[in-house]
C-alpha cells in the first residue's frame, strides 16, 4: 500500500529529528549536594559521555573514588562506538521510507526503532546498574552497608549527600518526537477515507 504524501512528509521530518539527535545530548544526569549548589552534570551523547561543564566529569569521577565507583571513561564504553552508526542508519532508513512511500516498510522501520530504543534504554540501565553496584569495596573509603549508588533511569533519587536526577535531554526528546511523528504518519493514512472504504460505507448506507 502506498503512503499519502502527508504521511511521507511526516516521516521525512521524523528522520530529520533522528539525524538531529546525533548532534545533541540524549540524556542528562544532574547531581546536587550541599557543597555543590551549582550542581554537577553529565550528558550522554550518541558517541560519548561529557561533563555539563568542562570539568564536571573529572569532578564526578574524583568524588566517586570515595565510594569505590569505577571511573566513568567514555572510551571504555564499547557501545558508544557504534550507537552513532545505528542512529545514522535509522535516519537514513527513515529517509528511504519517505522516498519509497511503502506503508509496510514504514511499519518495519517503526518496529525497528521501538526495538532499538528499548535496547538502548536497557543498555543505559545496565551501565547505571554496573556503576552503582560493582563497587571496589576493597578500596572504597565510604562504605554504607547495603548502599548502592545506581542513579535513576528517569526521575530523582537521593544518594548520600547528592540528589541525582536523570532526564532525557534535547536529543532524547528529538528521538521521542520522531517516534510520535512516525506513528502519527501511520495513523493518518489509516484514518483517511480511502476510495475503497468510502464505497463500502455507501453500500452500508444503502442496506440500512
Amino acid at each position, binding site marked *: 500500500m502506498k503512503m499519502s504524501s502527508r504521511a511521507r512528509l511526516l516521516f521525512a521530518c521524523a528522520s530529520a529529528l533522528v539525524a538531529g539527535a546525533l548532534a545533541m545530548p540524549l540524556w542528562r544526569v544532574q547531581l546536587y549536594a550541599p557543597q555543590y549548589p551549582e550542581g554537577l552534570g553529565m550528558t550522554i551523547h550518541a558517541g560519548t559521555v561529557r561533563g555539563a561543564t*568542562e*570539568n564536571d566529569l*573529572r*569532578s564526578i569521577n*574524583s*568524588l566517586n573514588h*570515595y565510594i569505590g565507583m569505577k571511573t566513568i571513561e567514555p572510551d571504555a564504553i564499547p557501545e558508544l562506538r557504534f550507537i552513532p552508526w545505528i542512529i545514522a542508519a535509522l535516519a537514513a532508513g527513515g529517509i528511504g521510507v519517505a522516498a519509497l512511500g511503502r506503508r509496510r516498510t514504514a511499519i518495519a522501520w517503526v518496529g525497528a526503532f521501538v526495538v532499538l530504543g528499548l535496547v538502548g534504554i536497557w543498555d543505559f540501565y545496565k551501565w547505571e546498574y554496573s556503576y552503582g553496584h560493582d563497587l571496589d569495596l576493597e*578500596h572504597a*573509603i*565510604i562504605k554504607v552497608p547495603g548502599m548502592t549508588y545506581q542513579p535513576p533511569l528517569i526521575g530523582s533519587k537521593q544518594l548520600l549527600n547528592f540528589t541525582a536526577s536523570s532526564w532525557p535531554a534535547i536529543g532524547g526528546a528529538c528521538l521521542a518526537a520522531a517516534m510520535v511523528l512516525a506513528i502519527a504518519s501511520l495513523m493518518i493514512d489509516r484514518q483517511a477515507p480511502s476510495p475503497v472504504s468510502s464505497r463500502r460505507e455507501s453500500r452500508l448506507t444503502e442496506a440500512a
Partner: protein
Amino acid sequence: MSALKTRSVLFGATLAGAAAVLYACGSHTARTTSLAAGDAASKVYVPPGSYDEFYAFLSGGYSGQVAVYGVPSGRLLKLIPVFSQFPEDGYGYNEETKPLFQTTYGFVPWDDSHHPEMSMTDGVPDGRWLFINANNTPRIARIDLTRFETDEIIEIPNAAGGHASPFTTPDSKYVVSATRFSVPVPNNDVAIDTYKKNFKGTLSFISANQPGKMDIAFQILMPGYNYDLGHAGKGPSDGWFFFTSYNTEEANTKLEENASQNDKDFIAAVNYRRAEECLAQGKGRTAPGNYYHNWVEEGSRIAKSERKTSVTMLEPANCPGAVYYLPTPKSPHGVDIDPTGEYIVAGSKLATVIPVHSFTKLQRAIADRAFEKEIDGIPVLKYDAVMAGEVQKPGLGPLHTEFDGRGYAYTSFFISSEVVKWKLGTWEVVDRIPTYYSIGHLMIPGGDSKQPWGKYLIAMNKITKDRYLPTGPEMAQSAQLIDISGDKMKLLLDFPTIGEPHYAQAIPASLIRDKQVKYYKLADNKNPWVTRSESEGGITRTGKRVDVKMIAIRSHFAPDNIEGVQVGDTVVFHVTNIEQDWDILHGFAVLGMNTSELILQPGETRSLTWIPKGTGVFPFYCTDFCSALHQEMQGYVRVSPAGSDVKLMANVSRKAQAQLAGQAGAQR
C-alpha cells in the same frame, strides 16, 4: 627653649580653636548608639545568600594589604596580600611570589599601603585592576580583579615616602607617585642641614595600561617640598595632574612647627601632555635611577624581577608650560577634582576655609601670565587669578573631598570629626554629620571619577575608642557607612577594618562579579614543576638540593612517603592542587618548617623551601579543610643523617601505578 615655647603656644591655640568649634557645633554626646536613622537596619541588611551592591577596596594601612568589603553590609569578603608577607597562604614565602618583594634595598617583607586606585576607561572606574601604593619603600602594585591577586609591583626610584600615589589618569595610561620626603637626588651622603641646597622632590609618571609592563615613563625634578596627594584632571582638565605640597619652607627638622609657617603652600599643576612633548623633543635627560620591576608571568604564574638603572628626568626649567604652582592655603593635604573637571578642591588642613581653584581661570591666568614669581623655572600663579571660591567656616582640619555627581562635594574634617556637605559653585555648606572619631579619608563609589555612583559614603576614621566592645589598648579601626542619597546625610552602619585604612575605592559589583576566575586550568599551568597527575609525582636530587613533585587532591597527597632526605639538604616541595573545581583548596605544611604554609588554589603549583635541621620523621598535612577525609590527608618525610645510605624514595600511589600501567600499555 624659645622654639619649645612657641610650640606650646601654638598647641594651646589649636586646642582653643578646636574647643571653639566644638562649642559652636553644639555639645558632642559621648556615645551615639541611637543616632543611626530608624530604617538604617533594613538599608544595610543583605539577606543570607544575597550579594552586596558594591565591592569596596579599603587600604590595609600599616598591614600593607587591601581589604575587600561588601557594601552596604560592611561584610569583610577578602584580604588581598600586597606588600606584606602573608603566612596565611604563603604569599611572599613561596618561591613563586618571593620575587614580588624584591627592591633595591633587598627583600622588603612589609610596607604601609595607603591609596587604592581603580583603573579607569574614559575617566570611569572599569574594574580591571586596582593599584595601590607602598608609602615606606615607594612602590606601586597592580592587583588583578579577576583573581583578586597582586600581579605586579614596581619600585619608584629617586623617591622616599611614596604618598601622593598611585592616582590614575582617566585612560589609565599613567599612575603617578610623588615623593612625600624630599631626599638628595640621586641619594647620597650629605649633611641633613644642606636640605635647601641638596634635597629634591620627584613626580613620577608610571606607564600602567599594560599588565606586566609597568615602567617609569618619566620623572619631573621638583623643589624639595613634601608632595602629599594628587589627582588627575578630567574632561576639560584631562591631560593635567595636580599634586599638593607642604613644607614649602623646606625645613629639615621639627616640621610640625617649621613647615607650618607659610600662609600658603602650593598645588603643583602639571600639564603632562606638554611634558610628553618636551620629552619627544629630547628635553629630558637620562638620570641615574635604580629600581626593580617585579611581575607575575602569565602561564607559569611565577614572579620575575628585573633591575633597571636609569630614568628619563625632566626639569621644569627646560620645559616651560609643563608645571605651575597654585598658591593654596595652608599645608594642603588632599587635592580632588570634581566630576566636571573644572574645580580643583584643596584639603587645606590648617586653613579655616576650603579653597577651590578653577581650571578655566587657571588657563586664563597662564595666558595672561598672572604670575607672582618663579621658583626653579616654575611660575607661581596669583591666588586671586586662579581661585574659584572658598567654602567659609566649614569645620576644622579639612583633609579630603569626594563628589556625588549631583553638584555636591563632601569634605572630611579630622579635628572637628565630621563630614561636611557643600555645594559646588555657591560654596555654601548644606549639611554636616559627625564621625566617630577623627575621620581621615572618605570615599564615595566612583567619587573621584567622572561618574560617581553617589548613593553611599564611607568615612574611614583614625580613632575608634568606644565604638565596639573594647579589646585592650588597641582597637580595630573603624569605618562608617553614610547614606547620601537624600538631602540629609544619614549614618547607617559602623564596621571595623584592618590596619589603618587610608583611602578606598568602590565599584558596582556587577562590573567585577561575573569576571571571576574559578580555577586555574591544569592544561595551562606552565610552572616547570607542575605535576598534572599522580603518576608524574616524584623526587630528584641535585647535589644538596632535593625537589619533591607532589599532587594534592581530595583527600590525599601523592607521593605521601618520602625518604632519603639528609640533614644539610635543601628540600623544595612543589605541590600542585590538581582539582579543577571552584573553591576546592588544599594546604600544605611540614612540622617545624621555618617559613609558612602553602594554600593552593585549584590548578595551581606552589613551591616551598624547607631546610631540615635534624634527623627524624616529619609529618606534613593539608591545612585547608578540603573534604570529609581531610584529617587523613597527610604524609611523612624521613630525614637521615648526612651521608646516610637511605635510598632517595617517594612512594607511588595505587592510582599512579594504574596510570603508569595504562601509559605503558598505550606505548606497547
